[in-house]
């Protein structure tokens, strides 16, 4: 009996020592050298990039992978990467997207296990910054052309507090209200210029038996990112207004914020009857089939709507402000591409990153994926009419701004409610009639003040 036990114990301890201590000590060790490598790799790579442009034929063929959350744009991206390959025949970039909701988790797993792509899309602000601080994104402070080709505002979402960039911005998205032009003409409606006109139009549409707006809350992010954060700039005074909230000059439950929640309340009679079970894709289908007359949506849906090809004329107009207030457009810095510091082909990757600043890329991207607007100063002519319509909003408006909570308010300390969720819960509650706009704004202020210092002494 004792002998059996002895043998068993020996084997068990052998196996345990073999597999114990595997994951934990390795990961922090892997982080440190990755972070050290990145700055060292920058200096020689800058020279290599210049050389690569002059003598591409002399280089060995390299294959890079590009990770992204744009599963809808595979064809367009393949065409864009073909254009790159034509200019740099020795470098091939393969597009490898992941489903958007799983992108962050998938990318992080890949980065932690060393199987991540050479290049990948980086989320703006806190999410990307967290990856950079963990050593998973290479610094681009020595990448030539960044300062010349981008404004400080465009680089900021993918730069540290000190202004060190870690990704090349490639796309901004705009937001607006898609509408059925034929139905508007039939009912004698003009494009609304004020919120009051929009509500009157919605009532007319409802009386004619058509659902005015197709947005629902089953995919909770839609009502938050696309509806609420589109109308917030109109109510608070755009970028300047948002800065006042972030500085603590205004509280998050002041009259302007309550006005924004009130506009959500105004929408309640005009959304589909079973809006709580209407998902984002249901909303798009309701619009495309003509069951709903309007949809708050982003410019990224242009290609989806064009593919669905509704049998009516459709276009988009900017969300109108209340009477007497200025119009601001939610023009959000959406995506940038960064480099994996553990990549084996860093010089080639930097060639690609530099190419992203060029007009060739801007044109291929802006026209290949209409609705995503290239961010560099080398702005090309865009061919898609709806994309140009979106861009025209920026001309008529008093200003543009990113989505309200993305800067500084997204990542709250563990155990506190982040502002995105607080706002989302409030918006849905107001739409369902469970909370008044004031109560929702108060809960937003309470959630943010729990951890964000300027909000704790706000309004003074």
């Amino acid at each position, binding site marked *: 009996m004792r002998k*059996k036990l002895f043998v068993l114990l020996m084997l068990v301890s052998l196996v345990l020592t073999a597999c114990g201590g595997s994951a*934990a000590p390795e990961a922090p060790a892997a982080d440190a050298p990755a972070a050290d490598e990145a700055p060292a790799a920058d200096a020689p790579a800058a020279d290599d990039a210049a050389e690569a442009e002059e003598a591409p034929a002399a280089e060995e063929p390299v294959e890079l992978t590009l990770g992204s959350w744009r599963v809808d744009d595979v064809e367009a991206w393949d065409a864009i990467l073909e254009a790159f390959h034509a200019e740099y025949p020795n470098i091939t970039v393969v597009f490898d997207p992941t489903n958007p909701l799983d992108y962050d988790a998938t990318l992080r797993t890949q980065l932690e296990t060393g199987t991540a792509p050479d290049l990948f899309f980086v989320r703006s602000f806190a999410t990307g910054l967290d990856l950079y601080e963990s050593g998973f994104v290479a610094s681009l402070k020595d990448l030539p052309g960044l300062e010349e080709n981008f404004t400080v505002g465009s680089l900021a979402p993918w730069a540290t507090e000190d202004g060190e960039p870690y990704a090349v911005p490639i796309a901004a998205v705009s937001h607006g209200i898609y509408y059925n032009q034929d139905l508007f003409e039939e009912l004698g409606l003009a494009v609304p210029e004020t919120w009051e006109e929009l509500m009157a139009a919605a009532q007319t549409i409802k009386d004619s038996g058509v659902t005015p707006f197709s947005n629902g809350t089953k*995919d909770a992010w839609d009502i938050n990112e696309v509806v609420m954060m589109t109308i917030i700039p109109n109510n608070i005074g755009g970028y300047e207004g948002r800065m006042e909230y972030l500085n603590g000059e205004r509280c998050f439950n002041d009259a302007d914020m309550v006005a924004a929640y009130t506009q959500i309340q105004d929408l309640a009679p005009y959304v589909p009857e079973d809006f*709580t079970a*209407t998902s984002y894709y*249901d909303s798009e289908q309701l619009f495309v089939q003509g069951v709903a007359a309007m949809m708050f949506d982003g410019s990224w849906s242009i290609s989806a709507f064009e593919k669905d090809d509704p049998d009516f004329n459709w276009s988009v107009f900017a969300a109108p402000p209340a009477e007497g207030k200025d119009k601001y457009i939610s023009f959000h810095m959406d995506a940038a591409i960064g480099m994996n510091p553990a990549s084996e082909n860093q010089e080639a990757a930097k060639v690609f990153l530099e190419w992203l600043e060029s007009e060739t890329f801007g044109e291929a991207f802006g026209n290949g994926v209409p609705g995503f607007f290239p961010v560099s100063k080398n702005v090309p002519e865009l061919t898609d009419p709806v994309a140009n319509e979106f861009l025209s909003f920026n001309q008529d408006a008093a200003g543009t701004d990113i989505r309200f909570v993305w800067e500084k308010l997204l990542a709250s300390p*563990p155990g506190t409610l982040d502002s*995105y969720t607080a706002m989302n819960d409030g918006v849905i509650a107001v739409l369902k009639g469970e909370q008044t706009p004031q109560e929702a704004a108060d809960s937003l202020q309470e959630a943010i003040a729990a951890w964000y210092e300027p909000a704790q002494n706000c309004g003074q």
Partner: protein
Amino acid sequence: MMANLKKKLSRTYQENGIWILFLLPALIMYLVFMAAPLLDSMRLSLYTGKGYTPTEFVGLQNYIDLFTNPLWKDRFFGALKNTFTFFSVHMIVQNSLGLFFATLLSADFKGRNFFRTIIFAPATLSVLVTGFLWTLILNPHWGAINQALKAVGLDSWAKPWLGDENLALITISLTSVWQWVGMPTVLFLAGLLGIPDDLIEAARVDGASGWQIFWRIKFPLLKPVIGVVAILTFVDNFNAFDVIFAMAGARGEPGYATDLLATFFYRTGIAGEHPVGIPNMGMGAAIATVTFTILMTGVLLWLYTSRKNTDYL
């Protein structure tokens, strides 16, 4: 010393036979792929930090936060309550239906094989595909269920099934019951067919009705099978994730009504809150450890009570 060891080992081997070698592959697989990761996860729950392998040791702080910090506490107990509801629906509806179908199928009638197949067929489908298809069927605008209800005139019954906080979890549970009812059916059927016919005939000779035969003879003899089915239901459903993920996402929408322990863990430890996407693996591991403890307690209780009735096991 090595020579002594060798002698001891070879004597053990000769004396006790080969059973150790037979056990070894399974034991190694179990230790490497199940026991070691489990213990390592429990170790991770004592740390905090960024990414999937946190490095800052905080002891039991994660557990303290989980049970006292209002935000964590609300989510955790909400998830626990929902998981328990999910499990109860399965226990009551799925297993009763399973027993009912098994009783019907134990009689010999025309088409019995056909019914056996269609009752079991959904269990062979992919869980995600089933979830997505049922989401479409339950869709308020285009789904078959609401359209059928409206066609018959029962408009008030055509509710937003997956959008209503009171209905969403039950709806998803019933979808899962539809898919898995074949399992208890098959198990109970095997149990029923194992009951000797002489007992049934003797009871019939004594004048017992069908109802009495079922409750006085078949049901008591099925107790061990019921025990096995109960514990399988308990373990499978406390871990449920895929059907909820397919039909309602990992955020427990609407309003955390469909948040289970597994989706709560996924949202905390792996995916992070949308759209920030920064995971908190230390807390995630704590949630997973608590789930494991609950499951372990349940299974140990079952093992203990079933040991007492070892006549049939």
